């Protein structure tokens, strides 16, 4: 085969033309890398935020919190920002065509691409720009206008949500406050099907689950929290610019397939949302206070603290909150119909119902229906086919000629971010069994029933690692009075509509008097079920009385047979004398029937007076009896929350 000379030249020239274009990515890449080094881009805060780099604890250098291999393009990308940046630039030259399962690196890492493009001004002739259709479609569906931080309040009966939860909502341009249900929510959660609460808690502590971001219609979240779990939701609308919102979404897209080891305490839902916000606005420093633990309400507080970041807040009461409020507004005639209608034991044909005016009928049917939903959601369906009963109530409602009433539930005066700080220290002094003492006490997290209640779920106490040290003036000297790694109390009042169980558990060491008068620190586990009521008016009053049946197991080598097992009642009342002044009289007795036998009891009165949000005075007086010895204690202390 022989080509004419001219043709050969043409071919050669073509090769000449082709040669530079195959060589160009390499040279252009070298140029980009060179410029990135000149500009020291890998040291920039934006790059560190995008890669989730955080300083090593002991050694110099950084590591990324991301745990998925695919998040890094360089083999050492988890610890080397420069190497990762160069590998990222190289990957942008990839000619992978986007499919439903695969993306070009420019699209898969679109926030990195966008930032590096801004810094290096990519020449699209030498580094062709990918269309990234999947991302564009996704973004178009979200049609973002802004971002709202969503905070569903704590739910003690769900171990994964004891402190509440946070997620983000992407608000679309064509929505308003009446149609926000249609927005999308970005949620970070442990990806697991675990249904065993204990296994969940343990794995959550040690990072045993992969944490992942997901996106879903906001209405699913509202139904879940408001209707199924009966948790109030707080919405904090953030003041992000369109560019910041875009950065947030691009980064969420990048994190889609990425997992992080999920840690219940620190690297949890709330922590990673803060990181997303830091990517959106690199000037923000939100995460640094949360190196050790990130309590959702504290992260909300941190966001509110940033000047001008929150522009508006919206309260979305749960189904139970709405029912409770509407029941409180009802006349006795109306109230008497709710339970029978919701349980299918009365009909709208009954005289008691028919005699009511239409507005009243409408109200009764609406609340009966909502109450039936509540019963279903809490697993206490009163009839075989609750769906059909609900349908009947609604059909009746549609026939009543009365407009919608839906009285707005008053917004609680204190938002979750406005409550007292979750850490507490106290200093005080008093007298115990004839000895004066001064006391120091600390509690890292979170809230007890005697703390100022605003912003917290009423009746819910969670404390971790509460401890007290006392210095007795004579004889005893300095000693640890008690250490309580865990204490949870859930007191929920019962009435004719709501019948929750109360419960409590505490685990820790406390002083226990022995027959010889010595007082070793004895380990104990104590807890049990209880019941509570509000008095005198079940729907409007805030004074609560409670009773628990407690079981106690104590262990110490100084005890007879090394242990003591007991059972006994505890009763008390929580009384708000004024908005600032709360009192709790209590009495408890135990019958230790196995091991070291004894019948100890205690009666006392705790009082708290709130000075300001983060300061309170406490006065506790008590009389106790153990091993046939009785003594009095009085303690006055000043508490500070932070």
């Amino acid at each position, binding site marked *: 085969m022989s080509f004419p000379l001219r043709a050969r030249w043409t071919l050669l020239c073509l090769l000449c033309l082709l040669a530079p274009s195959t060589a160009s990515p390499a040279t252009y890449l070298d140029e980009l890398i060179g410029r990135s080094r000149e500009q020291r881009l890998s040291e920039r805060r934006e790059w560190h935020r995008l890669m989730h780099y955080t300083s090593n604890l002991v050694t110099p250098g950084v590591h990324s919190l991301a745990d998925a291999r695919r998040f890094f393009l360089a083999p050492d990308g988890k610890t080397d920002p420069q190497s990762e940046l160069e590998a990222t630039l190289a990957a942008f030259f990839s000619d992978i065509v986007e499919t*439903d399962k695969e993306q070009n690196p420019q699209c898969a890492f679109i926030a990195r691409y966008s930032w590096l493009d801004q810094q290096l001004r990519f020449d699209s002739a030498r580094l062709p720009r990918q269309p990234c259709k999947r991302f564009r479609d996704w973004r178009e569906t979200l049609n973002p206008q802004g971002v709202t931080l969503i905070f569903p309040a704590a739910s003690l009966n769900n171990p994964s949500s004891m402190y509440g939860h946070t997620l983000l909502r992407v608000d679309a341009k064509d929505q308003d406050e009446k149609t926000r249900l249609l927005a999308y929510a970005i949620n970070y959660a442990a990806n697991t099907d675990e*249904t065993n609460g204990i296994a969940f808690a343990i794995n959550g502590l040690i990072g045993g689950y992969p944490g992942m971001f997901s*996106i879903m219609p906001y209405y699913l979240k509202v139904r879940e929290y408001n209707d199924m779990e009966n948790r109030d939701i707080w919405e904090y609308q953030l003041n992000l610019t369109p560019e910041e919102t875009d950065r947030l979404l691009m980064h969420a897209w990048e994190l889609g397939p990425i997992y992080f080891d999920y840690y219940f305490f620190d690297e949890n839902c709330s922590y990673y949302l803060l990181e997303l916000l830091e990517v959106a606005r690199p000037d923000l420093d939100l995460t640094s206070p949360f190196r050790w633990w990130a309590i959702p309400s504290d992260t909300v507080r941190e966001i509110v603290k940033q000047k001008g970041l929150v522009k508006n807040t919206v309260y979305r009461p749960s189904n139970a909150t709405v029912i409770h409020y509407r029941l409180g507004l009802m006349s006795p005639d109306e109230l008497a119909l709710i339970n029978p209608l919701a349980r299918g034991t009365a009909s709208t044909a009954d005289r008691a119902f028919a005699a009511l005016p239409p507005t009243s009928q409408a109200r009764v049917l609406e609340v009966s229906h909502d109450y039936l939903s509540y019963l279903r959601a809490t697993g206490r369906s009163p009839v075989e086919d609750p769906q059909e009963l609900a349908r009947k109530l609604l059909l009746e409602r549609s026939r009543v000629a009365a407009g*919608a009433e839906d009285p707005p539930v008053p917004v609680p005066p204190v938002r979750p971010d406005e409550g007292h700080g979750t850490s507490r220290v106290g200093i005080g002094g008093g007298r115990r069994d004839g000895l004066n003492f001064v006391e120091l006490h600390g509690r890292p997290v979170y809230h007890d029933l005697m703390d100022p209640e605003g912003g917290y779920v009423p009746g819910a106490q969670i404390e971790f690692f509460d401890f007290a040290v006392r210095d007795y003036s004579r004889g005893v000297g300095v000693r640890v009075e008690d250490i309580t790694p865990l204490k949870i109390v859930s007191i929920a009042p019962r009435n004719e509509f709501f019948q929750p169980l109360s419960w409590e558990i505490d685990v820790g060491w406390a002083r226990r008097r022995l027959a010889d008068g010595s007082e070793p620190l004895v380990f104990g586990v104590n807890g049990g079920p209880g019941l509570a009521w509000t008095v005198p008016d079940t729907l409007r009053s805030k004074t609560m009385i409670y009773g628990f049946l407690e079981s106690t197991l104590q262990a110490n080598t100084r005890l007879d047979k090394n242990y003591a097992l007991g059972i006994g009642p505890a009763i008390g009342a929580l009384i708000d004398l004024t908005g600032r002044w709360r009192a709790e009289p209590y009495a408890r007795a135990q019958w230790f029937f196995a091991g070291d036998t004894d019948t100890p009891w205690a009666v006392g009165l705790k009082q708290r007076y709130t000075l300001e949000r983060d300061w309170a005075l406490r006065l506790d007086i008590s009389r106790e009896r153990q091993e046939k010895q009785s003594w009095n204690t009085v303690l006055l202390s000043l508490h500070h929350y932070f």
Partner: protein
Amino acid sequence: MRKILIAVFLSVVSALAFAQKAAAQQNNIGTCGWGAKLFDGQSGVAPQVLAVTTNGTSGNQTFGITTGTSGCTQDGVVRSTWKTAMFIDGNKERLARDMSIGNGETLDSLAHLIGVRQEDRAAFNRTVQANVSRIFASGSTTDQVVVALKEVLGSDRTLAQYAASI
């Protein structure tokens, strides 16, 4: 002649089969693989709720960002053809409540979703309220609710224009 009859018969049968299949694929929430399922068996017992909730999501791909096409979602967001059916499926109880009252956030959101203009909102609310027993017939599935809503709107002169966008 016989051959022609057979051919006609076969084509009718296949057309019917095709139509059935098309109907099954269109607006049939069951083919999404979630939706109603998400709300089944939710009786409020903590461990059960835990499985799909808050800090523990079940391991499915439906809501994964960048997971491609999965049931009714594309990269985690609901595909436009499913939007209305999905919304009704996820909000059935609240929607029935709002319709029976003729007002409410869930109803507003539905109206917005199917593009009911502001001037037609009052008529829309009135019409669904008057027909709530038809829209939410006894024991009806989401698919049946969707079809019934379509019919109710379709038979109203002002609102017929919106029936198509469900």
